[in-house]
C-alpha cells in the first residue's frame, strides 16, 4: 500500500476530538506552540459543549507551509480519543482522511477497514505510561512526530509545560510524548503516511495568540486600568487575561455581583478618571442596557466588549453567533449615539480595542467591541503587532470654578472634567439636566440637550473606520461581511479564484461608513455573509443606505463558517 499523502497543498488540517476533561485543550496548547516554533504556520480553533467533563469536543489545527487563519471542513488527520469522538465528527470524514488511533479502541465492533485508519493505540500507550490521563500527551507526541518536530524540542517543551506538576507527572508526560512521537516516526518509516508540508524558519518567531489575547492587549494599549465584569462565556477570557496581567499593568480587576453592578461600576470608574472596560455576552449585556442608557445621558465614556454567542436567553453558551448586532445598536432606552467596532483579524482586535478607548473618551460615548466565541477561541500566528505607535489620549480637562460638565458647545462635546482634578465641581445626572449637570425640567433645555447628544453623531461619522476591500476594485460581485468572518471569507474568495469577486469587510458597523453605498452600487450582485438567522447587518445596510443586498447568506447552528461552506454558498449565487 502506498503511503497516505496528506497536505498536497502544503496545508494540513488536523482534528483532535474527545470528551471535555480528556485534555484536548492541553494538546492544542502544546501543539500550536510547538509547531509554530518549528516553523509551521498554525491556525487553531475549537468547538465544545457547555460542560466541564464528558460530551464531545473537537479542536482543529491547521498546520501549513503558508499563513492560514480560518477553519476548514476538511480533515486530513483525525485523532479521535474514543468511539464517541469518532461519531461526533463522522460526517466530516472523507475517503482520504487519515484516522490515527487504536483500531480496536475506535472500532470495537470492527469496520476500521472502511476508513483510512492507521493503528496507534493511544489509550493503550497511555495506560502503559500510567493511565488514560496521559492519552492527550501521547496524542501530542504523535502529531509532533508526524510533523517531524525536533525530538528534543518536544521533550523540553513538555517538561516545561508541565513544570508546575510533580516530578513523576512531568516524567510520565515526557514518556507519553516520547512514545507517541516514536509511534509516529514508525508509521512514517513504515511508509504508511507522508506529510507534504514544509516548515518556514520565518514564522518560528511569530506571535501566536487568540482573539481574547488580542482584545486584552488592545485594551491595555488603550489605557485600560479598570475592569469590572461578571463571568459569562465566551467573554470571560478577556477578564482572565486582564486579571493575569493586572498586577503588571496596574489594573483594578473586580468580579461584580452581577452585570448591573459591573456596568455601573464601569461608569463610576470613567467618571472618576479611569479607563474602564466591561466584558460580557448577550444575556449579561441585556442586563446592562439600562446603564448603557445612563452612559448616553451622562455622556460618560464606556467600553463594552460584547462576545456573542447564540441566543435567545442561555441558548448555546459555548457556541458562536453574530446575533447581537441589533441588540448593541439599539440598546438602552432613549436616543444617543454610539460606536460599534467589529474586528475581523487579530490585528484588528488589538487596534480597534485600543481605538475604542480613545474614541469613547473623545466623544464621551459607549464604544462596543463586538466579537464572538469563535473569535475569542481561535489562534493563529502573525509576524508582529506593533504597539509602539499607539497612544493613550486622555480627553479630560483640569477644571476651574466656572466648570460646567454639560457646557453647550458647538459640536456637542463638552470638555470632560473629573472629580478632584482642578477646583471645579463635576456633576453628572441621569435626569435631563442643565449645563451644570443639575436636574432640570426646562423643556427648551431638554431640546438643547437632546440635540447636543445627537450632534455627536456627526463627529462620529467623520471618524469611522472605513470598510476594507479585499480583491480588485472593478468587481461585479461583492461579498460583504463584518467581524469574525474576515479570514474565512477572504480565503474562500482565494479558493474560488475569480477576479470579478471582491470582498468588503466592515470593522465598524456603527456609524456605518459613508462609502458603503458606493461600494454596493458598483456590484452587479451583492451578498452579505453573516452568522445569524435574520441578516441583521443586511438590515442595517438597508436602513442606513436604502440598499437591499441581493443575497443573505446566513448561518446559525452555533458554528463559524468554514472555507468550503462559504465557497459553496457563494458559488450558488454567482
Amino acid at each position: 500500500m502506498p503511503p497516505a499523502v496528506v497536505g498536497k497543498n502544503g496545508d494540513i488540517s488536523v482534528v483532535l476530538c474527545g470528551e471535555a476533561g480528556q485534555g484536548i485543550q492541553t494538546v492544542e496548547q502544546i501543539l500550536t506552540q510547538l509547531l509554530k516554533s518549528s516553523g509551521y504556520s498554525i491556525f487553531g480553533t475549537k468547538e465544545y459543549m457547555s460542560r466541564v467533563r464528558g460530551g464531545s469536543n473537537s479542536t482543529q489545527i491547521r498546520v501549513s507551509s503558508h499563513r492560514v487563519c480560518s477553519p476548514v471542513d476538511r480533515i486530513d488527520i483525525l485523532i479521535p480519543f474514543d468511539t464517541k469522538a469518532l461519531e461526533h465528527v463522522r460526517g466530516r470524514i472523507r475517503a482520504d482522511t487519515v484516522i490515527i488511533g487504536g483500531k480496536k479502541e475506535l472500532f470495537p465492533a470492527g469496520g476500521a477497514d472502511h476508513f483510512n485508519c492507521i493503528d496507534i493505540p493511544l489509550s493503550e500507550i497511555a495506560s502503559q505510561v500510567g493511565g488514560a490521563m496521559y492519552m492527550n500527551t501521547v496524542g501530542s507526541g504523535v502529531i509532533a512526530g508526524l510533523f517531524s518536530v525536533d525530538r528534543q524540542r518536544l521533550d523540553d517543551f513538555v517538561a516545561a509545560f508541565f513544570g508546575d506538576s510533580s516530578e513523576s507527572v512531568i516524567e510520565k508526560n515526557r514518556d507519553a510524548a516520547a512514545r507517541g512521537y516514536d509511534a509516529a516516526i514508525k508509521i512514517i518509516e513504515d511508509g504508511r503516511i507522508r506529510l507534504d508540508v514544509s516548515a518556514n524558519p520565518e514564522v518560528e518567531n511569530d506571535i501566536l495568540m487568540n482573539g481574547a489575547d488580542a482584545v486584552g492587549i488592545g485594551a491595555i494599549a488603550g489605557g485600560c486600568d479598570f475592569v469590572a465584569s461578571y463571568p459569562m462565556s465566551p467573554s470571560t477570557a478577556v477578564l482572565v487575561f486582564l486579571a493575569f496581567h493586572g498586577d503588571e499593568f496596574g489594573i483594578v480587576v473586580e468580579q461584580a455581583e452581577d452585570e448591573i453592578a459591573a456596568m455601573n461600576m464601569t461608569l463610576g470608574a470613567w467618571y472618576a478618571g479611569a479607563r474602564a472596560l466591561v466584558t460580557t455576552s448577550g444575556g449579561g449585556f441585556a442586563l446592562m442596557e439600562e446603564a448603557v442608557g445612563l452612559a448616553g445621558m451622562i455622556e460618560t465614556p464606556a467600553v463594552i466588549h460584547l462576545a456573542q454567542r447564540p441566543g435567545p436567553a442561555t441558548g448555546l453558551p459555548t457556541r458562536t453567533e453574530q446575533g447581537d448586532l441589533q441588540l448593541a445598536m439599539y440598546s438602552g432606552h432613549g436616543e444617543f449615539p454610539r460606536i460599534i467596532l467589529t474586528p475581523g483579524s487579530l490585528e484588528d482586535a488589538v487596534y480597534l480595542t485600543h481605538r475604542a478607548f480613545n474614541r469613547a473618551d473623545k466623544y464621551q460615548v459607549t464604544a462596543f467591541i463586538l466579537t464572538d466565541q469563535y473569535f475569542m477561541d481561535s489562534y493563529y500566528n502573525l509576524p508582529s503587532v506593533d504597539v509602539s505607535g499607539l497612544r493613550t489620549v486622555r480627553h479630560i480637562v483640569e477644571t476651574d470654578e466656572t466648570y460646567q460638565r454639560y457646557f453647550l458647545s458647538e459640536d456637542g462635546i463638552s470638555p470632560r472634567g473629573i472629580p478632584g482634578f482642578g477646583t471645579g465641581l463635576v456633576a453628572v445626572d441621569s435626569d435631563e439636566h442643565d449645563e451644570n449637570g443639575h436636574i432640570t425640567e426646562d423643556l427648551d433645555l431638554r431640546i438643547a440637550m437632546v440635540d447636543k447628544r445627537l450632534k455627536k453623531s456627526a463627529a462620529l461619522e467623520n471618524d469611522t473606520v472605513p470598510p476594507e476591500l479585499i480583491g480588485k476594485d472593478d468587481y461585479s460581485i461583492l461579498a460583504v461581511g463584518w467581524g469574525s468572518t474576515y479570514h474565512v471569507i477572504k480565503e474562500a474568495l482565494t479558493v474560488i479564484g475569480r477576479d470579478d469577486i471582491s470582498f468588503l469587510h466592515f470593522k465598524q458597523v456603527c456609524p456605518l461608513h459613508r462609502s458603503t453605498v458606493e461600494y454596493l452600487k458598483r456590484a452587479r450582485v451583492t451578498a452579505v455573509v453573516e452568522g445569524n438567522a435574520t441578516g441583521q447587518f443586511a438590515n442595517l445596510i438597508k436602513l442606513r443606505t436604502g440598499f437591499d443586498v441581493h443575497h443573505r447568506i446566513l448561518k446559525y447552528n452555533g458554528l463559524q463558517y468554514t472555507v468550503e461552506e462559504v465557497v459553496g454558498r457563494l458559488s450558488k449565487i454567482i
Partner: protein
Amino acid sequence: MKQGPFDRGAIDIAWCPGCGNFAILNALKAALTQLGISPEQIVIASGIGQAAKMPHYVRTNVFNGLHGRAIPAATAIKAANPGLTVIAEGGDGDMYGEGGNHFIHAIRRNPDITAIIHNNMVYGLTKGQASPTSSLGFKTPVQVGGVTEEPFNAMAVAIALNASFVARAFAGDVDQTRDIIKAAISHRGFSIVEILQPCVSFNKVNTFQWFKENSGYVEDSYDPSDRSAAFNRAAEGGKMALGICYVNSERSCFEETLSPYSEDSTPLFKRDVDMAKLARLVDSKRQA
C-alpha cells in the same frame, strides 16, 4: 443666611415642605463642614428617588445615576481614585429594593465609602407605594389590602454579613445625625447609616412622632463591637436602635486589596500605560 462651604445658594429644592430630608441635608452639610473636607474632594453618588436628589443640594461633585445603583458607581469611583471621599445616598426603595443586591455585596466587598439610606418606609417619589421597609399592614394604592411582606431589617442583615460599620440615625435629631455621619465617613470601610426620615406626604403612619416614640439611642454602655449583642438589638421588636450599632475594625477595605495601590496611591487618571512593557507582553507571545 451665611453660606457654608457646601451650600448651593438659592436653589429650588424639590422636596415637600416639612419633609425629613431637609434635616438630613443639614446634618450632612454640617458633618462635611466639620470634617473639613473640601467640596472638590467629595463625590456624592446617588440613585433615583426623593432621597437620591440629595447630591443636587450639596455643593460638591455629583454622580446621580440610576435607581438602585449608587453603590456600584460609588465603589468604582473610590477604587479609581482612593483619595476622594465618596458617599452613596438613596432611599429605602433605592438601596434595599432595586439595589438590594449591591447593598449586600458591598458589605462583603467593604469599599471605604459611606452609604446613607433615608428610610421613610415608603416610595416617596413614585407617590406612595410600599417600600421594603414598610410596616406590615401599611395600605397604599398598590398594597390595597396592606403590606404582607416582612419589613427588610437592614441593620440585622448588615450585622449578619459582618459589616464594617452599621449605624442608624433619626432625622428628627440633626446633631446626632451629623455626628453619626461624621463617624461613618471617618471609619475606614463600608459604613452604613440608615436614617429614619418622616415622609409627610405619603407616610401618615410612620410620622415624626411615631419615629420619635419608636426609636431610641443605644445606651452609653453599649458595645458596638459585640456582634451577637448587636444582632439581638437589631432583630428584637420594640424601639428601633439609634446610634452606632455595630463596628468591625478588623476587615481590610476594598481599595487596600487592589494591586494597583499596593505600592503607589496615585489615582488611576494620573498614570500612563507602560508601552514598552506592553511590547514585551506582545513579544512574550512569540514563545510558549
